[in-house]
Each structure stands twice: as structure tokens, then as C-alpha cells.
């Protein structure tokens, strides 16, 4: 029986291997569980939230947490728990799509620069350096201010402002893989450059990219919340954690629950993503293989 099991194990792919190592890391698994719960919350928000996120109840303003309103109500009597539940949609959407944008654009730039090198690399990377010279948050503010505040523009702004980081990361990974013999072998087999990059190089630099992207989602959520906080992101009444914080700010002395709960929601999300990112980094590091 043991041998049968061993045979099955032998066929495992590299990703199964990673999962086996990730599973050992309790913190990372905790982070993963929280993120999965968050996704479920976002998907089933309509069933989970006891109230609509915009229905006002002016008789019940500034309620402290109770059985009826778990996290209390805000200045319009809206249920804060429901708003946080719906807010998870926005945060996850913004976080993942923004990272998707920067990963696709930054990744392509980095891959091309890293693979071809020479003048093209110089040109692309100096453009990235220019972007890098502007603080990320300022760049995002400038882009949103120019495009006008909306969810889509928020994603674009957050995405663009983090492009240079991904470009540099992917470039560095591509450069280290490019010199390996199997790339030479692929070239000797008559593969085109595009095929070599997509089929041979990128799959080999997935590890650092995944780690960076996971932590990048956390940063993107924070940046988006920050932009909403200063009024450049999601507009009311759409619930967004950052704008909820901002809305509760004026009442923080008397009704701290209005800022406390969105703050906790954000903190837990970021923490979970960072834990998962750290765990993935360890799990994907080939030097720790055992």
C-alpha cells in the first residue's frame, strides 16, 4: 500500500510541491483562509449583508454595536456591517484588477527589456525610472485627478503607479533565466523569441512574480483606500473601506465604532495578504526544498 502511495506522489507537479510546503506554514494557511472567506463574502454579499448598503434609517443614527446592527450604524443610520460586507467587493476588485493591470503592462515591459537587452532595454527601463522617481501615491493622485474619480479610473491609477516595480522584478528574473542552457536549446530548436519568452522564460520566473503580486494586492488595496479617504476614489454612497474611514473621521471622538470596524476589516485583509505572500515566498524558494 505504501508503494502505491509513493507512486502517486511521484507524479506530483511543482505546484503540488509548493502547496505541500505552504501547508506547513500555519500563518500562511491562516492568511489564505481569511482571503478565501473574503472572496466568499464578496461573492455572496447579497445573502450575507442583513441590510442594503444604502438604505438610510434616520431614526437609528450613530447606533453602537448591537444584535440588530452588529457593527452599529453611521451618520445616516446605515448598517456598518452591511457596508463593510459590500465594501469587500470594491476592495478586492480594485486590489486584484489594479495588480493585474500593472502586472500585464509592467511584466511585458520587463520581459522585453530583460530578454532583448541593449538599447531597447535602456529606453524602456529609463522610462520606468522616470515613473519610479515620482512617489507612487502622488502619481496615483495625479492620474485620478486627471481622469476623474471613479472605480475604473481608481484601478487604472493604482495599476499604472505600480508598473515600474513589476517591470524591474520581471526584468531581473528574465535576465537570470535568459542565460540558462535550456533557453539556448530552445533557440537551437528554432523557437521564436516570443515563444521562448512565453513558454520557457516566464514560467520559470513565476515564483518571485507571484510573491510580489500577492503583496502588491495588499498595497493596491491600501493605496485605493487612501485615495478614497481623500475623496479621489470611490464616491458615496458606494461603500468603500477607505471612504468609510474618511466619513467616520469627523465623529471619531463620540462614535469610534464608525472608523474602528472598516479599519479592522482593512487591517485583517492586508495582514492576510502579507502572511500569504511571505508564506509563498518561503514555499517557492527552491533553496528551502526538502
Amino acid at each position, binding site marked *: 500500500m505504501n508503494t502505491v502511495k509513493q507512486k502517486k506522489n*511521484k507524479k506530483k507537479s511543482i505546484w503540488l510541491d509548493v502547496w505541500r510546503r505552504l501547508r506547513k506554514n500555519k500563518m500562511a494557511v491562516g492568511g489564505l483562509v481569511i482571503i478565501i472567506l473574503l472572496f466568499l463574502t464578496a461573492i455572496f454579499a447579497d445573502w450575507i449583508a442583513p441590510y442594503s448598503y444604502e438604505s438610510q434609517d434616520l431614526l437609528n443614527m450613530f447606533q453602537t454595536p448591537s444584535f440588530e446592527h452588529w457593527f452599529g450604524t453611521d451618520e445616516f443610520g446605515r448598517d456598518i456591517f452591511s457596508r463593510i460586507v459590500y465594501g469587500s467587493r470594491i476592495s478586492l476588485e480594485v486590489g486584484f484588477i489594479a495588480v493585474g493591470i500593472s502586472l500585464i503592462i509592467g511584466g511585458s515591459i520587463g520581459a522585453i527589456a530583460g530578454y532583448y537587452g541593449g538599447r531597447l532595454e535602456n529606453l524602456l527601463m529609463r522610462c520606468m525610472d522616470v515613473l519610479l522617481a515620482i512617489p507612487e501615491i502622488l502619481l496615483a493622485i495625479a492620474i485620478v485627478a486627471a481622469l476623474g474619480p471613479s472605480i475604473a479610473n481608481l484601478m487604472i491609477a493604482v495599476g499604472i503607479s505600480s508598473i515600474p516595480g513589476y517591470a524591474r522584478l520581471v526584468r531581473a528574473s528574465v535576465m537570470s533565466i535568459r542565460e540558462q542552457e535550456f533557453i539556448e*536549446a530552445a533557440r*537551437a530548436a*528554432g*523557437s521564436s523569441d516570443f515563444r521562448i519568452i512565453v513558454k*520557457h522564460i516566464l*514560467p*520559470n520566473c513565476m515564483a518571485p512574480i507571484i510573491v510580489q503580486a500577492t503583496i502588491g494586492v495588499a498595497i493596491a488595496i491600501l493605496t485605493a483606500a487612501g485615495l478614497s479617504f481623500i475623496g479621489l476614489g470611490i464616491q458615496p454612497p458606494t461603500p468603500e473601506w477607505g471612504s468609510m474611514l474618511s466619513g467616520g473621521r469627523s465623529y471619531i471622538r463620540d462614535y469610534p465604532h464608525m472608523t474602528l470596524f472598516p479599519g479592522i476589516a482593512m487591517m485583517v485583509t492586508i495582514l492576510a495578504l502579507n502572511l500569504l505572500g511571505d508564506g509563498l515566498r518561503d514555499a517557492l524558494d527552491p533553496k528551502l526544498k526538502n
Partner: protein
Amino acid sequence: MAEKHLLEIKNLTIHYQTDYGTVHAVEGFNLEVGNGETLGLVGETGAGKTTTAFGIMQLLPEPAGKVVAGEIYFRGENLLGKSKTEMKKILGKQIAMIFQDPMTSLNPVMTVGAQIEEMIKLHEPGTKEEIKEKAKKMLEVVGIPAVRQDEYPHQFSGGMKQRVVIAIALSCNPMLLIADEPTTALDVTIQAQVLDLMKKLKDDFKTSMIMITHDLGVVAEICDKVAIMYGGKVVEYATKESLYTKPYHPYTVGLFNSIPDLDSEQDRLNVIDGLPPDPTDMPSGCSFHPRCPHKMPICSQKSPSKVVVGSEHHVYCYLYEQEGAL
């Protein structure tokens, strides 16, 4: 063009431009490979063997490496005149390469089956099933059970990996196989297995082969013709039998002398005095003259020309030029 040669290299010269000066990796290199023939390209590390191979395939590292002069005729067509797109159709399909280290010449995150399929997909498009079937067949041909096609390279031993590399190289039935020290990274017993396999497959697939090696034992095992390379040039070219019966060039003689004799007691290995030449600063004339035991004044002045010393045996050395053809 004489059609009897599959590959004919004339006066090939390859230089690398580096910060330390121009590296004369290959200088006036001449060679022919006939159909179905196996040629051993023998020389020390740095003699320009691998550079020659990359030169043939036009995969020299850019922008440093450059073919400065010469012609490479493959099936009567000059490869140096081909565009990159044309070369991509030839590489893999007509000229395939086996690399030195099987540990690093396979993509670690792709299953071996997928890597063989990749090669077939590039040159012989077909339906998914056909390609998969063919890949399976190739694995069996090199002696690996087809059920292992979904495994990753790290699940194979070194010898098995080299078999996979051979399967990939032969999957499109190339006319010329360039093997760059295919057995150097393997231990001796596996070396013998891999060489036997290559020998058998070469005959089955009717492929010509250039075997790059520094091991005269490997040459004896598998090659028909041998070209001895020194300082970027061929110094002696012969059939295997002719060369092993009587080597002419002082360098070749030195190589043979440095093989330890099993029958006699010997405390020290015979070596060729001196070091291989610095490729940025090649000696004038015959590049071997600083180390040559039979050095003559003319050796440092002019490069020796080809001296025919037997049927299909020629050497570049003044020793024989003066005596006339032997």
C-alpha cells in the same frame, strides 16, 4: 557545390569583441561533413569547438560574437546568407543540437513529454493527438517508458535526461546533429550507454553528426572522421583508422601520448608542455609553434598550408611540407 558533402565550411573566422580585445575564437576553419558521416571535432577547452557549432547555427551570442569571414554550405546553400526566419525553419528541423549538460538543457518547469512535443509542434504541425503520439514514440525510441512523459526533468537521472535531450533533438528527424560534449557531464558507465544509443539512433535515422569532444576514447567509439582543432583551426583531418594508426601533426601526437598506457608502469602522465594560446593574442604563424617539439624558424612566420598525407588525411604542418607528401 559538390553535393556529396552535407556540410562544407570554408575559411570560417569568428571573432568575439570584448573589453579585453578581439578574441580570435575561430580562424580560417575548413571542414566537410558527408552524408551519414560522424565527424569528431576534438580539441582542448577554448580551441573554438563550441563556437564553431554556434557559428554553424548562427546562434553566436550577440552582439559580441561575429562571423568575420567564411562560408558555411549546408546542402549546397550558404547558411550565412540566410535570414533569421529562414534559419529558424532549419534549426531543429534539419540541424539539431545536443548540449553538454543535460541537467541544465531541459526546462525545469515543463514535463519531458511537453518538451518533445514543443519541438515537433515547431516543425511538424499536426493534431494534438498525433504530436502526443509521436512524442511518446520518441521516448520509447531512446529507451524511456512512455508512461513517464508527464514527469518533470528533476524526476529523471542524468543519463535519462540526456536520453530525453536526444529524443528532442531527433524528434524531427534532422539531417545533421551537432552534439556538444554530450557525455562529459555523465559518469563513465552511463557515457557508454548514451554513446551506444547515439550510435544506434544515428544509423536508424541516417543522420550525420558532428561530435564535439575532447575525449579521444569517445571518438574511437563513434566517429568515422576526426578533425583535430587547435587555436581555432583544424590542424589535422583524417579518417579514424588513419589517425589512430599514424597521427602526423605534433599536437595530435602529443594528444595521443598523453593518454596513459594501461600495459606499462607509469608514474606521471605525459603532457604537452605549455598552455593553450591566449585567444586574444594568437601566436603568429602556426599557433602551435610555441609548444611544438619540432619547431622550425618558418613556423612562427607563416601559417602552414594543407599537406595531403594520405587518402582523406591531411595536416597543416611544415614538417611534412618540406619532405613532400609522404
